[in-house]
């Protein structure tokens, strides 16, 4: 085997060709916290933190714009730590928020603006970015400030604005960078729900109210396993076009659709309100066949619930 040692570089070269190693999930969390729109709080990446927190202060000003949109969506987001922090800041709003959560979110009512502003003002004032009066003036007029050119340019397409503003709001909580992105996701997904699937919408609305009630009493998560369909046909006919997972008191949530043959992730979502529409991450329809749905969720008690079941797309 001496010869092998003569070619020691070849040996190593071959061995490391395409070499892969597992990465802890924390790495993604940290990266996600740093690359999301503006908030950063990652310990390992100190270089960009300083500049970005300055940016945050500017961004705080823009927060106002999001009040209309974001407020609506903040309500729609099932109680997350982030949301409850806001709620604590404005105790008088808690009840209203919970009870109206479902309907407000679903109907896009503009009348909710005032109430929203009240909630959101608090973080704004705390960060000394914008006086309340200014907030009130700007919203009805729907003025879009110049700093946020992107928003202006994005054809004032509602979904897009919502995305960005939600991020801005959450960036107030600097330590919440992960949640922030999750919020963003929720917004995106929900916007699709409105447009795509009215039937599904109604179901969700009911469940959310249920959730709100139950959440005050319990601490461990539950998933309605039996209600997860085993088959669905994402053909756009409005019936069973999406698949979602229902549950209560979910604090952490992660669902994946896996290719059954190679266990590759085809699609995933990180919030209980998310869903799958039978397309991969790039919007391409997946072929008919059987896939694996994998859900890991936990409540405040941190006890994970795991669901693994097959799912046939036809």
């Amino acid at each position: 085997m001496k010869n092998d040692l003569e070619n020691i570089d070849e040996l190593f070269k071959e061995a490391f060709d395409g070499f892969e190693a597992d990465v802890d999930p924390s790495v993604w969390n940290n990266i996600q916290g740093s690359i999301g729109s503006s908030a950063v709080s990652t310990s390992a990446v100190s270089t960009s933190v300083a500049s970005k927190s300055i940016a945050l202060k500017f961004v705080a000003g823009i927060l106002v714009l999001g009040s209309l949109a974001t407020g609506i969506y903040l309500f729609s987001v099932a109680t997350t730590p982030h949301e409850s922090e806001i709620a604590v800041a404005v105790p008088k709003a808690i009840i209203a928020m919970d009870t109206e959560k479902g309907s407000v979110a679903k109907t896009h009512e503009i009348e909710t603006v005032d109430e929203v502003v009240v909630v959101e003002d608090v973080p704004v004032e705390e960060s000394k970015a914008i006086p309340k009066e200014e907030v009130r003036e700007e919203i009805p007029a729907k003025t879009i400030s110049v700093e946020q050119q992107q928003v202006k340019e994005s054809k004032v397409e509602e979904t897009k604005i919502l995305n960005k503003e939600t991020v801005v709001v959450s960036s107030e909580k600097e330590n919440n960078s992960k949640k922030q992105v999750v919020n963003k996701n929720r917004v995106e997904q929900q916007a699709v729900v409105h447009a795509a699937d009215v039937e599904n919408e109604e179901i969700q609305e009911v469940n959310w109210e249920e959730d709100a009630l139950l959440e005050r009493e319990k601490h461990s998560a539950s998933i309605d396993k039996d209600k997860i369909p085993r088959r669905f046909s994402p053909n756009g006919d409005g019936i069973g076009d999406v698949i979602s997972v229902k549950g209560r008191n979910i604090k952490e949530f992660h669902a994946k659709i896996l290719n059954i043959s190679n266990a590759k992730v085809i699609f995933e979502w990180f919030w209980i309100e998310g869903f799958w529409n039978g397309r991969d991450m790039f919007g391409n329809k997946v072929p008919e066949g059987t896939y694996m749905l994998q859900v890991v969720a936990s409540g405040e008690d941190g006890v994970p619930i795991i669901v693994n079941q097959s799912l046939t797309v036809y």
Partner: protein
Amino acid sequence: MKINEEQLVFRCLEKDPLAQKYLFEYYSKRMMGVCLRYSTDREEAQEVLQIGLIKVFEKLEMFDQKGSLEGWIRKIIVNTALDNIRKHKKLQLNVDIDKIDYQLDNHHETAIEALSAKDLLKVIQQMPLGFKTVFNMYVIEGYSHKEIAEELEITVGTSKSQFSRAKAYLRKILIKEEITR
């Protein structure tokens, strides 16, 4: 699923969280493999990976679509690993290869071909830093000695001698541990 790089990059630039996650999922394991080779342990490798991938996202608009995305990412990761070495460590260029106290797990009695990347990784990680860095860059990343010299601020001669000594070191270890017979 076939990956459409152009679309992926575009969506990452739009800060689409799904695309960002996808990019991470798709490349992070291989890049972790790269980082491990330049590090002494997993923690260090993960730190390098994290910083490197953040750079990837931040610099993504500079990716010109000419080469492969993987090659571009890999370059950033390797540079990050080298930064880490330059910043935090001395290259230990004068290690005596006779003083090798490295122990490989003794359960390998197979021929050298059977050595897995995992085993070789252990060997590489334990190598003196100068050997390790030069060896990695030259053999696996394909840098020339001139490029290595520039990157590490050493002379071409040093790079060459580090490389041959690294090979001698590896040979010694592999023989010592009777991995080969």
